[in-house]
């Protein structure tokens, strides 16, 4: 049957068809839908969210030790978090086939950087598979498992946003079961004490050379004949852009691009006067060519390093023209905290109290936008707490009264817990605010260890932030109703005033998760409205000014009494549910 699947759905389908038994992940755009779709095959494939990518990686590696085909998926920066197990897993090698999916984000549609994770394959000395559409995702995933099992190595499988999220036709197949290998204790290859690791390194080098020989003739690397005068080398999504930009050219399309098939590439390049190397972001392939002394190539000198490519950019880069067309300036339409978002009260209060925050990654990062403007720093998952403590150590304890750490619940579970222990251990006065909407909202509402439900839909234990704080030594830890403006203000004041570490858990469900609780829109009694503008400082998309500067509420956006933060901040009580006004 021919169906349309996104690249992420095709990975999930591939898990099913190629006999995968265990799949793990921590969510992250553009990779999230992989596991969200794997769970549809839960009778055949066990799947789970882990608290972060490092743990997800280690669980997957353990499953591979256990003798089954296993997959771990993450966004590009997730592999930074999992880099420690990655770098060593490569020498121990898999038993059950082990595939690591990295979904990179050229153009940074929803990421903090544009890192090209193909370098991780080279760094970790493992094979790199790069599909170019959803059918190849499905097919190449099977080959990736064969490579993994034949050579005893994890395989890095690289998607990018336009592969993960583009839907293209796929021919579905059946599931093939893969027999589980029996677990045999093998300390010489699974316990990496230096004596073993030295021998394992030699093994890895030999293995790489063997896989390179395999790559020279692998069907994943193929030539598409065209104009005998124009040669192009490309891989992944860049290949598709290059095909459209240079439809007549002859292509060397690399699907297994590391270990680099240098002889194949050399022979290809010998056929042409000039070969274009088309790559998004980094000149990964080009570097191998140049290292091999192949110089009749044009790559980075013309193809831009920053941002996503498309066929027009590739064509223009080569021709030197600019056919982008003129843009007409239009006001930006940036994403904002939704109407009814529980995070709003924290940032409004910080703003009013003139307290800054080191913050973190999630919906709440939108608290940086005017009028809330409550964020001083945002670097990577979990950085908020360490950043706050570090500022306090540099500037002094008093500074902790003016700077708090704000972190989401999922981010706290991901990598905030160790930061909190650090604050207690090193006697910080830091106030840590967990904005707890009880879900991973930013990436589309995934459960985590603090929500009480697993990916497979079972109810489970729920991390207790208060008990956790107490057990690491934070004596003052409390829950606050995020929709109670007065309570939020009192809690933040008290927490910042004292000289001790404090944990505040601002509780309130993500408004998008509880549509059933939305009520009729609030209305402004404009006769009594004094146009003081306080409610506008909430930055709620539902509230705007009328001609007289008075507040009006858009009934299509307002979620009603469920939130009512604006009604609470109004000094003259002129915002209310319709029948009360």
């Amino acid at each position, binding site marked *: 049957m021919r169906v349309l699947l996104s690249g992420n759905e095709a990975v999930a389908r591939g898990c099913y068809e190629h006999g995968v038994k265990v799949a793990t992940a921590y969510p992250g755009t553009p990779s999230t839908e992989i596991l969200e779709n794997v769970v549809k095959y839960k009778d055949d494939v066990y799947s789970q969210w882990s608290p972060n990518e490092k743990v997800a990686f280690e669980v997957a590696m353990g499953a591979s030790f256990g003798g089954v085909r296993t997959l771990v998926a993450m966004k590009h920066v997730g592999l930074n978090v999992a880099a420690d197990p990655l770098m060593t897993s490569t020498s121990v090698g898999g038993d059950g086939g082990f595939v690591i999916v990295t979904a990179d984000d050229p153009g940074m549609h929803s990421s903090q950087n544009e890192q090209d994770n193909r370098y991780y394959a080279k760094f970790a000395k493992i094979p790199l598979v790069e599909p170019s559409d959803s059918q190849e995702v499905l097919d190449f995933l099977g080959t990736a498992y064969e490579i993994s099992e034949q050579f005893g190595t994890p395989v890095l499988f690289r998607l990018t946003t336009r592969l993960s999220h*583009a839907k293209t036709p796929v021919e579905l197949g059946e599931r093939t079961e893969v027999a589980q290998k029996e677990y045999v204790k093998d300390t010489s290859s699974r316990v990496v004490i230096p004596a073993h690791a030295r021998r394992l390194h030699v093994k890895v080098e030999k293995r790489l050379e063997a896989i390179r020989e395999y790559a020279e003739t692998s069907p994943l690397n193929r030539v598409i004949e065209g104009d005998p005068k124009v040669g192009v080398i490309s891989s992944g999504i860049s290949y598709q852009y290059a095909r459209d930009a240079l439809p007549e050219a002859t292509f060397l399309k690399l699907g297994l691009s590391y270990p680099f098939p240098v002889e194949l590439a050399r022979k290809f390049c010998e056929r042409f006067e000039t070969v274009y190397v088309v790559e998004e972001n980094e000149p990964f392939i080009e570097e191998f060519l140049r290292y091999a002394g192949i110089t009749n190539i044009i790559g980075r000198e013309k193809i831009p390093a920053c941002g996503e490519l498309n066929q027009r950019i590739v064509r223009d880069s080569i021709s030197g023209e600019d056919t982008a067309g*003129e843009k007409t300036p239009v006001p930006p*339409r940036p994403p904002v905290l939704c109407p009814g978002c529980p995070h709003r009260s924290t940032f409004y209060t910080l703003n009013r109290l003139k307290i800054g925050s080191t913050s973190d990654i999630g919906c709440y990062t939108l608290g940086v936008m005017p009028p809330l403007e409550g964020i001083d720093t945002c670097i990577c998952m979990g950085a908020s707490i360490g950043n706050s403590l570090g500022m306090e150590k540099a500037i002094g304890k008093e500074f902790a009264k003016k700077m708090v750490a704000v972190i989401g619940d999922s981010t706290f579970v991901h990598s905030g817990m160790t930061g909190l222990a650090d604050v207690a251990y090193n006697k910080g006065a830091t106030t840590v605010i967990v904005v707890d909407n009880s879900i991973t909202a930013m990436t589309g509402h995934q459960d985590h260890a603090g929500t009480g439900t697993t990916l497979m839909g079972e109810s489970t234990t729920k991390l207790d932030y208060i008990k956790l704080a107490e057990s690491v030594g934070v004596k003052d830890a409390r829950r606050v109703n995020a929709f109670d403006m007065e309570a939020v203000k009192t809690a933040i004041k008290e927490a910042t005033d004292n000289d001790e570490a404090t944990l505040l858990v601002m509780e309130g469900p993500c408004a998008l998760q509880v549509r059933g609780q939305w009520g009729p829109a609030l209305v402004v009694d404009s006769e009594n409205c004094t146009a003081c503008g306080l409610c506008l400082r909430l930055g709620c998309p539902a509230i705007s000014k009328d001609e007289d500067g008075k507040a009006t509420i858009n009934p299509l956006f307002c979620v009603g009494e469920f939130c009512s933060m604006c009604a609470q901040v109004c000094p003259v009580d002129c915002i209310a549910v319709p029948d009360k006004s």
Partner: protein
Amino acid sequence: MANKTTDVFICGVGGQGILLASEILSDVALAKGLDIKKSEVHGMAQRGGSVVSHVRFGEAIHSPVIAEGEADILASFEKMEALRWIQFVKPGGKVIVNSQEIVPSGMETYPPAIDRKISERVPDTMFIDALKLAKEAGHLRAVNIVMLGAFSHFLEFTEDEWKTAIKARVPKKTIEINLRAFELGRAAVSG
């Protein structure tokens, strides 16, 4: 028709049902046995940001995205959004705009003269009041299917093929409203 690619660029504001419309278009093309690629970026769609979906179909499709100057049709579910992406329309291409105005959060009023600026860039522009037609069909949320109906008029599929795809995608209870929305949108541009 050999090697001809049709590029439909759909844009609007998160929450307007853009992805459903492009899903239905893709279903119709797939059912015809065509090669088809559809691309959009997930993540921000629900948070009031600008949303686009690229749909390309034909004999053989390579890139999943439409580049600047390539779109045969740009269908914008919101007025200002048409102008934001106007450079994607190919010379001689067509623009269909829902004249609905959604003020971006943080702005107090809607910028003026958007209609004129769009028509200056692309003479073949049609404005329709999709919100009004959606209301007429039975639900404000049917704006997306009104717009689908409007741009469907300029594509080579039959009315039946469209309706079959709509029925398969929308919730059962809303089939009637959506079919009416489709017809109203189609009629609005064929007059």
